[in-house]
């Protein structure tokens, strides 16, 4: 297996220091970009690398970078460090253990689109990550990697670290921009997209933390050298596995290999039951899907999505009704309330699931839930509202008898194996 790019030094504490980072090849990509290449050449390199957004939507990064108008006088880079998709924890790892990798990515992105101000929107609860990042920024400024005349060029950049305050919807890009402008994080109608009209109405490049962490390596190795590493991606694996953690693996690694080899498989005497392959917003998959390659197209064909590449694994002790009820409760509480199907649908569905879970369900409830899910599909302003139906649908398809047992007997029939 090829060498890791993003997480190679992640467990070495000295990596947060600028000098160590530089000794290990850090800021070489930024140096090449700023000193040897034009902004258009940098964008072309990112485009050729095939890098796709790691925040959840998987949008090609090069496309987004190209979409920012060249001639606009004021532009911004905004980093999405809100990391709130349940099951996802890779961005926190990157922020806390390799902050210069992100700063380098921001620097390259800002140079490429011609922005002189960047904002890192960190989720409120990321106290430690902010501390580490701000210390790294101070060091970067002291050594001429931030501020005025960066690396002896006439390029200037200032980064502002912003703290959110607890709202999942602030991770959605237009909600994030509203929040960064000091408002409630209510998603905006799109188009216009942030690349045209983003922060304060100016063209804005908005990328996820991990997305930008790839960029330094792309510029250091060149697009082809980077691709030779097999399109690396960070997978957050959690739940019922022996070794939960972040795994850097090539896109397309089979789900089975990820769970059973890298994450150590199930706990002793337990069997795999189901998993969310891309955070709690992705439809659950079951045993028959274990050979699915973990990439955008294969997962879509399997009826789910790669999302934030967060694999939440459930073994045979798991009550699916309980898990789905908890997931829906999350979307209910985090719905911003702007559109009716999402605001009301999540409340109704949650009520029905609670009553089924606690033994007061009726046989008609299963069809009722399917109906609510249908009513939410394609009718919501942002993807939050659309997150609920796929997993509910798959849980009804694969685990219908668990719901029926709850309704019939009033209790859970998932026997805990001895």
């Amino acid at each position, binding site marked *: 297996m090829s060498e890791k790019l993003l997480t190679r030094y992640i467990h070495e504490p000295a990596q947060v220091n600028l000098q160590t980072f530089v000794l290990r090849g850090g800021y070489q990509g930024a140096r090449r970009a700023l000193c040897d290449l034009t902004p258009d050449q940098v964008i072309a390199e990112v485009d050729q690398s095939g890098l796709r957004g790691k925040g959840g939507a998987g949008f090609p990064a090069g496309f987004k970078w190209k979409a920012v108008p060249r001639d606009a006088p*004021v532009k911004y880079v905004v980093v999405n460090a809100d*990391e*709130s*998709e*349940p*099951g*996802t*924890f890779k*961005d*926190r790892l990157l922020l806390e253990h390799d902050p210069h990798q992100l700063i380098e990515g921001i620097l390259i992105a800002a140079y490429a689109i011609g922005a002189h*101000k960047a904002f890192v929107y960190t*989720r*409120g*609860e*990321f*106290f*430690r990550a902010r501390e580490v990042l701000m210390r790294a920024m101070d060091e970067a400024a002291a050594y001429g990697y931030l501020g005025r005349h960066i690396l002896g060029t006439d390029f200037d950049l200032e980064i*502002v670290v*912003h*703290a*959110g*305050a*607890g*709202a*999942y919807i602030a991770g959605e890009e237009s909600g994030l921009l509203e*929040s*960064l*402008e*000091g*408002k*409630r*994080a209510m998603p905006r109608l799109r188009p216009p997209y942030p690349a045209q009209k983003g922060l*304060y109405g100016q063209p804005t490049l908005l990328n996820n933390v991990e997305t930008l962490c790839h960029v330094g390596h792309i510029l250091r190795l060149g697009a082809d050298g980077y691709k030779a590493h097999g399109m690396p991606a960070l997978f*957050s*694996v*959690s*739940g*019922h596995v022996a070794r*939960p*953690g*972040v795994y850097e693996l090539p896109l397309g690694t089979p789900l089975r290999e990820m769970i059973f080899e890298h994450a150590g498989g199930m706990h002793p005497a337990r069997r795999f039951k189901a998993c*969310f392959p891309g955070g*709690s917003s992705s439809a659950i998959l079951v045993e028959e899907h274990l050979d699915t390659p973990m990439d955008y197209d294969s997962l879509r064909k399997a009826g789910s999505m790669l999302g934030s590449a*967060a694999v*939440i694994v*459930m073994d045979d002790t*798991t009550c699916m009704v*309980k*898990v789905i009820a*908890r*997931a829906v409760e*999350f979307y209910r*509480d*985090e719905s911003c309330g702007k559109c009716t199907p999402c605001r009301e649908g999540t409340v109704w569905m949650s009520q029905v699931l609670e009553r089924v879970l606690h033994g007061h369900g009726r046989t008609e409830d299963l069809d009722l839930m399917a109906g609510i899910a249908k009513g939410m599909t394609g009718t919501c302003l942002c993807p939050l509202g659309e997150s609920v139906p796929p997993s509910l649908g798959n849980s009804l398809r694969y685990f219908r008898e668990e719901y029926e047992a709850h309704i019939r007997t009033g209790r859970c029939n998932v026997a805990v194996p001895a």
Partner: protein
Amino acid sequence: MGYNEPSLPMIRTRVLSPQSVDQIRAAMARYPESRSALLPALHVAQRQVGYLSVEAMEDVAEVTGLPLNEVASVASFYTMFSLRPVGRHVVRLCTNISCLLCGSDEVLAHLRRRLGVGPGETTPDGAFTLRVEECLAACDRAPAMLVNEELHGRLTTQAVDTVLDRARGDGQAVGD
């Protein structure tokens, strides 16, 4: 007709300290449009006062130049802001899926027993407020909780006891 005293402009003393006001002004200067400093300002106010009292929000409104109802509307949208008093320590236990799978139910039951309060409540001695949280991006260390600003993972009932005892012992205030 009786004599009416001319109405005086209302004079109230700020609850925010000069340091807090300075921090808010510094935040306003960091952004191209100062309104962006509203969340940072609310963090500053909550850190000093412990929660966002009406007086604290009035001060934020005055310093940022935003209407009070805007400040209150934004504050009420975000779960980290508390509009009611909280304990000296805020315990935020994640009960989302990965933590649920790894036993957050038992940890929550233990917290309820130990603290004698349920989610959203504060212990009578004012030491702890218990909250249930959404995913804290620490699912590799599930079940996880934040106590004030510090993350604790792989919680067991013993680990919870150790954390609570230490918090109670050091008398540290929220956000200190």
